[in-house]
């Protein structure tokens, strides 16, 4: 790769792109093999930093790929993300840790980060910090320094800092910390090359720079005592200096204690440490060493900022944020504004989403007819046209709606508004036994339950997490949208459909809240989790990121349509077409010979198809479960569609497509909407919508739920819980709707 390439901003992307290989966990085996073949050892770089410092953005800038979603609330990257690429013929393996405020394992993500940093094998830590909020970010930096690993400090958001009139003396900062400092802007690809070079230098250097942090006099005195003691005995621990060992011992570093536990030197050390700690305790007027460490770090960070940062009284971006907050967090306007945003989102989803839908619809049916005309074999044609094209097509139809919905959620995430909503709603949520932070997984649930279940990890207390997990399913996911669009379109006027859609989502959410309260009162009793949350600065959403989020979600949806839903569509088609009753067929042929009028013929054919369907595998399943669904007004077809929806919610629509399209054989093919309107009563439709709104999430989501909740027994609870809630509410809705029609 050419050096010049990196000098130019855009060349960087091209240059890196060539050697780029993106591989989350599974790519590792390949990686190792290639390493051996090339005789190169990849440089393993760990990105660590507090939430909202643009770490994921840096991953994008470094690798020029868009792996890993970037958002503006804490904890978007819940799992550890790995990206590999080549720089100067060196493979670099990038590990993006979840953002953590400290290494004290407060939440699950912090545990993940801490365990990785302490126990895994890697070459360099790149500590990403927000240059506009250095003082607080340094608190984590100071903790990271105590890990005594090779480390580089990347001061991100250099552009924002400049705009805010913040000047940072990086040379001085390097001197104080003892590690290299690079000023970068991941957004503008600024300083990225320098950072990569520093990573190289650091990885290849045989020695590790040692932290030059100086603690308060009281602590320094004790450090020196212990250091001297260790020096005198020629003690050596790993590549640590004895000063580093002394600091770890004084601050009760559990890992160091564990490893030195059997070392005879500890017999002499213990009394010495005890004495030193007593001194420190007296000085700090507390016996909590963690508090002492925090106070020391806070003082050091304050000192560093005083020395290296020159800024105006108040950064511009922060003032702006506070000005926007004054409106969006206004006591009286805040919640109406939020509700308006949500309402607008659903209106957009429906109104704009409908425009391309008609085109897609006619394109799909034209495509089906076109393909069908080339297939001679009846069974095969039925499989391809009705099964595959019909099934998958029904799902493709809803791509525009999905894209708009994801666009909205991505905007909420990246601007920082999501955290504000958590703030606004906490008081309200708290009354229902939920945490303000539950809002984030719950809103994500409107997109897809899978990431929503994972997002619930940001909740620290197990009770809060479980309650949230249990009600996420009530937030209608994007995959249920096609069902709603289909039914609202069929049973309500075009003008009302958007509002009905909003109402569906809203009532799902409300039922979720009521259920949360019930769970809190009856099942998960006890203390509340504290609510302490950072409100990130408002940031203009980066188009790149929004595009990436929407694109990857749309791709995911299409991929699902092409694989899972395709398979399900074929399965449903098969189950609805077989076994074929020869008896019925003979009877049909006999009867059709006696009929001449076209209408009667169609009538007869429909009856025949209906009968065939009823005795098919699918019909048998539907019939068997019909009694369970009968009080809700569902016939066996709707029962089957719901059961097929357990595989994936999109399959409900494609199943209905397969089940109801069979009846039509003339050229003026009715759309599914019209067929439904003819076959289903209004009350049944309402009841069906309610059931879909509340019943068990899809197979993939259930699997993730089981993992996040921590056991199969929770899945059993979830099945019982959601099914009974769905059944009861559908029953009520059905009766009410019947009463009014």
């Amino acid at each position, binding site marked *: 790769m050419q050096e010049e390439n990196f000098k130019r901003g855009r060349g960087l992307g091209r240059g890196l792109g060539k050697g780029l290989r993106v591989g989350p966990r599974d790519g590792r085996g390949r990686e190792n093999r290639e390493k051996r073949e090339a005789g190169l050892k990849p440089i393993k770089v760990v990105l660590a930093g507090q939430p909202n410092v643009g770490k994921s953005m840096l991953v994008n800038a470094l690798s020029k790929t868009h792996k890993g979603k970037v958002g503006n609330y804490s904890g978007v990257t819940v799992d550890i993300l790995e990206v590999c690429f080549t720089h100067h013929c060196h493979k670099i393996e990038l590990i993006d840790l979840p953002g953590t405020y400290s290494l004290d394992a407060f939440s699950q993500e912090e545990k993940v980060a801490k365990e990785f940093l302490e126990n895994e094998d890697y070459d360099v830590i790149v500590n990403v910090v927000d240059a506009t909020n250095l003082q*607080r970010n340094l608190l984590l930096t100071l903790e990271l320094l105590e890990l005594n690993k090779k480390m580089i400090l990347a001061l991100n958001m250099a552009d924002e800092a400049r705009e805010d009139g913040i000047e940072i003396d990086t040379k001085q900062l390097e001197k104080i910390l003892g590690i290299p400092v690079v000023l970068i802007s991941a957004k503008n690809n600024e300083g990225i090359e320098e950072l990569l070079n520093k990573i190289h230098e650091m990885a290849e250097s045989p020695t590790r720079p040692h932290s030059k942090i100086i603690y308060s006099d009281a602590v320094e005195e004790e450090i020196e005592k212990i250091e001297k003691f260790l020096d005198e005995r020629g003690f050596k621990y790993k590549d640590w200096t004895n000063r580093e060992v002394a600091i770890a011992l004084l601050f009760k570093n559990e890992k160091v204690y564990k490893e030195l536990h059997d070392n005879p030197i500890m017999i002499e050390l213990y009394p010495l440490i005890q004495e030193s700690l007593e001194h420190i305790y007296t000085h700090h007027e507390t016996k909590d060493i963690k508090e002492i460490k925090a106070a020391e770090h806070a003082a050091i960070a304050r000192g560093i900022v005083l020395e290296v940062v020159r800024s105006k009284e108040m950064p511009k971006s922060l003032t702006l944020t506070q000005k926007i907050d004054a409106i969006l967090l206004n*006591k009286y306007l805040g919640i109406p504004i939020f509700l308006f945003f949500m309402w607008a989102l659903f209106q957009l989803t429906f109104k704009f989403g409908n425009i391309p839908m008609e085109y897609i619809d006619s394109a799909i049916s034209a495509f089906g007819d076109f393909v069908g005309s080339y297939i001679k074999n009846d069974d095969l044609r039925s499989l391809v046209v009705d099964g595959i094209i019909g099934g998958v097509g029904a799902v493709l139809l809803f791509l525009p709606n999905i894209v708009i919905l994801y666009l909205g959620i991505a905007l909420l995430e990246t601007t920082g508004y999501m955290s504000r909503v958590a*703030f606004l709603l906490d*008081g309200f949520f708290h009354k229902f036994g939920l945490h303000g932070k539950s809002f984030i997984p719950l809103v994500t649930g409107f997109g897809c339950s899978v990431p929503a279940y994972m997002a619930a990890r940001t909740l620290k207390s197990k009770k809060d997490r479980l309650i949230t997990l249990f009600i996420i399913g009530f937030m209608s996911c994007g995959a249920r949208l096609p069902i709603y669009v289909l039914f609202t379109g069929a049973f309500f006027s075009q003008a009302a459909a958007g509002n009905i859609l909003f109402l569906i989502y809203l009532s799902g959410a409300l039922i979720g809240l009521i259920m949360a309260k019930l769970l809190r009162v009856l099942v998960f009793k006890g203390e509340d989790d504290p609510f302490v949350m*950072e409100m990130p600065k408002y940031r203009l959403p980066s188009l790149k990121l929004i595009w990436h989020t929407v694109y990857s979600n749309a791709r995911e949806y299409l991929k699902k349509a092409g694989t899972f839903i395709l398979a399900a569509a074929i399965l449903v088609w098969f189950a609805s077409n077989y076994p074929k009753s020869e008896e019925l067929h003979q009877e049909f042929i006999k009867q059709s010979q006696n009929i001449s009028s076209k209408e009667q013929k169609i009538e007869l054919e429909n009856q025949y198809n209906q009968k065939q369907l009823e005795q098919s595998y699918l019909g048998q399943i539907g019939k068997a479960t019909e009694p369970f669904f009968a009080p809700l007004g569902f016939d066996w077809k709707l029962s089957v569609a719901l059961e097929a929806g357990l595989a994936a919610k999109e399959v409900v629509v494609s199943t209905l497509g397969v089940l109801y399209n069979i009846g039509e054989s003339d050229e003026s093919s009715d759309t599914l909407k019209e067929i439904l309107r003819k076959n289903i009563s209004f009350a049944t439709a309402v009841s069906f919508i309610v059931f879909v709104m509340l019943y068990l999430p899809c197979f993939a989501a259930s699997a993730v739920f089981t993992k996040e909740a921590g056991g199969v027994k929770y899945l059993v609870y979830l099945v019982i819980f959601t099914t009974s809630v769905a059944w009861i509410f559908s029953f009520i809705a059905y009766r009410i709707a019947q009463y009014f029609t």
Partner: protein
Amino acid sequence: MKLTELKKGQKAIIKKIDANPELKQRLFSLGVVKGAEVEVVDCSLGKSTIEIKVGNSLIALRENEANLIEVE
């Protein structure tokens, strides 16, 4: 005086944090430590949640947690 007693826009210095170790640690890592200056920026309806500014960070707290922080 407790943090909750501050009015919107008022500033004070943190004197003592009387929380359990975990919560304390979280507050520390956000820069809420003894000696730091806090300003109440906003509060939600009924003061159930308040927004404070410490250093250059905006932090949201529930009333229960804010009550554990003593300021002067």
